[in-house]
């Protein structure tokens, strides 16, 4: 009695030079398939997508970069690189250009949200769909957790920086993975082993504090991001761990103001929802992406040439 062999598409682990920086990315799937870009959160890297990538790669070309200062990408010293979200968006934009990805769906989580939305502001016509997972674009999503961060935004003093440092320790990292999770035994401890290995590198803590300080510039862009949503109406799937203390479920609901057609699924988990809810999220994502990336109706109101390209690639 034999069963059909299962398999798992191979993920490639590659590095390339982007704007003078060594940028690591994971890539899987057919070269000519529609592109899905996965943008990671703090303090992780493309490692957070290690299980999602093979679950999409039979249908999509999946690209998941590590931001500078994270994972296996370069960590240039402070002062030689402007650690912040404008620079991150520039690096990802340049990487995708180098990889020939001219149209793409974006999966954005945590830091990945402002990076991805900045990318969308630069190239709204390139974005075929959005999957938003605990990735914020509304003040409503930011509650008490942000008090120490807001103090840092108001005054980037040594004392305010020091107040954030516990968040960069192993306890802080474990907190991000475990808070709000109902079945702790679904969480792979490799998640925080991996993340902490990179956070503990000499010099990384102050880099992270610079990035946290720069996060305020994302909040200032929220109105522009909302205008992009309203004008371009990207097909949007919102998957939100509703027990996340960092980005509250009110932040998920708020997307519907500007994207009334978005699908919102509330997941009974925390910040890194993929860790314990992958089995629920993969079917939702595949069902959502299929008509938008492989279907006949191309993404809305874009110029015809781009749409033709997309349809050719999809077939």
């Amino acid at each position, binding site marked *: *009695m*034999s*069963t059909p*062999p*299962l*398999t*798992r598409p*191979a*993920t*490639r*682990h*590659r590095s390339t030079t982007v704007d003078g920086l060594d940028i*690591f990315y994971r890539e899987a799937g057919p070269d000519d398939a529609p592109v899905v870009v996965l943008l990671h959160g703090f303090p992780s890297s493309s*490692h957070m997508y*290690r*299980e999602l990538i093979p*679950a999409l790669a*039979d*249908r999509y070309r999946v690209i998941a970069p590590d931001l500078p200062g994270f994972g*296996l990408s370069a960590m240039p010293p402070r002062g030689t690189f402007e650690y912040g979200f404008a620079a991150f968006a520039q690096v990802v934009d340049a990487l995708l250009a180098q990889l020939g990805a001219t149209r793409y769906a974006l999966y954005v989580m945590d830091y990945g949200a402002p990076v991805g939305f900045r990318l969308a502001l630069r190239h709204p016509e390139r974005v075929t769909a959005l999957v938003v997972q605990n990735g914020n674009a509304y003040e409503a999503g930011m509650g008490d957790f942000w008090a120490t961060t807001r103090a840092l935004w108001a005054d980037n003093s040594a004392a305010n920086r020091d107040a954030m440092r516990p968040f960069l320790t192993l306890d802080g990292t474990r907190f991000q993975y475990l808070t709000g999770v109902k079945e702790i*035994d*679904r*969480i*792979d*401890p*490799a998640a925080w*082993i*991996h993340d*902490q*290995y*990179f956070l503990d590198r000499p010099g990384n803590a102050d880099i992270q504090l610079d990035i946290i300080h720069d996060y305020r510039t994302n909040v200032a862009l929220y109105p522009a991001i909302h205008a992009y949503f309203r004008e371009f109406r990207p097909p949007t799937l919102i998957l939100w761990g*509703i027990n996340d203390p960092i980005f509250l479920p009110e932040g998920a609901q708020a997307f*519907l103001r500007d994207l009334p*057609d*978005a*699908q*919102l*699924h*509330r*997941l*009974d988990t925390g910040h890194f929802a993929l860790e314990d809810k*992958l*089995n*629920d999220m*993969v*079917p*939702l994502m*595949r*069902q959502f*992406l*299929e008509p938008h990336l492989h279907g006949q109706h191309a993404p809305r109101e874009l110029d015809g040439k781009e749409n033709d390209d997309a349809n050719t690639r999809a077939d």
Partner: protein
Amino acid sequence: MNRPDSIDQIDRPRPSERPALAVPVIHYKKVDIDGVNVFYREAGPADAPVLLLLHGFPTSSHMFRNLIPLLADRYRVIAPDYPGYGQSDSPDRSGFDYTFANLADVIEKLTVALDLTKYSMYVMDYGAPIGYRLALKHPERVQALIVQNGNAYTEGLAAFWDPIKAYWADRSPAKREALAHLVTLELTKFQYTDGVSDTSRISPDNWVVDQALLDRPGNREIQLDLFGDYGSNVPLYPDFQAFFRQYQPPTLIVWGKNDVIFPEPGAHPYLRDLPAAELHLLDSGHFALEDKLDVMAPLIRDFLDRSL
């Protein structure tokens, strides 16, 4: 578009709808064995045949992370971390013997704690002597063997082992220190990449996670103890081989033929004692699962389906 307001209203696609892909749930658990928290990954139906995955140095059940989901629909898969590895406790050397005899005892007690009365074993590197020691204790419990770069024959201990053999012969601090390079990042990367033709298939997660754990205070001495104790496995090779001959467990050998740690000459002698074993040589190195999973998973499923 549906917009459910509660968690319960999530629509799950019907199995027949095209973009649905089943993703098995993996559980990450711990069990107390004589005061030591032993971590293990578990997946699959509770009443399915059991497959015990026994890892190599310097890794943990992490090395099976990609294989487990490909077997969990049909098998109850259990992959422990030995004490001193992965997420298991690393008790102080003064109160815990880091020997293969003791690690095999811990795994035996884990099988009792989890009520595993019959099991197949996937053995790799350190997993081989640990699994074979378990087999000597309870030969009737072993339903099948999958051997991947896991040694049981002196033919398989080649030049890589010369400095380790020197420490077996002379337990001096100098001979011990001569092995310290084996726990460095450089060697950990080497174990994953050497003999691999397409290294882009090798996830750097391997050496990030392994090295983070090797670099824990005190772990280096634990590893040096076990290099020394690996010598205790070699005198047991005749017993392992007698077990193979007497019990003839269905056996699949999948061997990365470019491995310099357990090279191909260690694979062939199994056929002397297990003439019915299937031997597949793979164009890979020591951690063959990292780049040859797409070949190995179907071989393993087919073998287990026929054997169990």
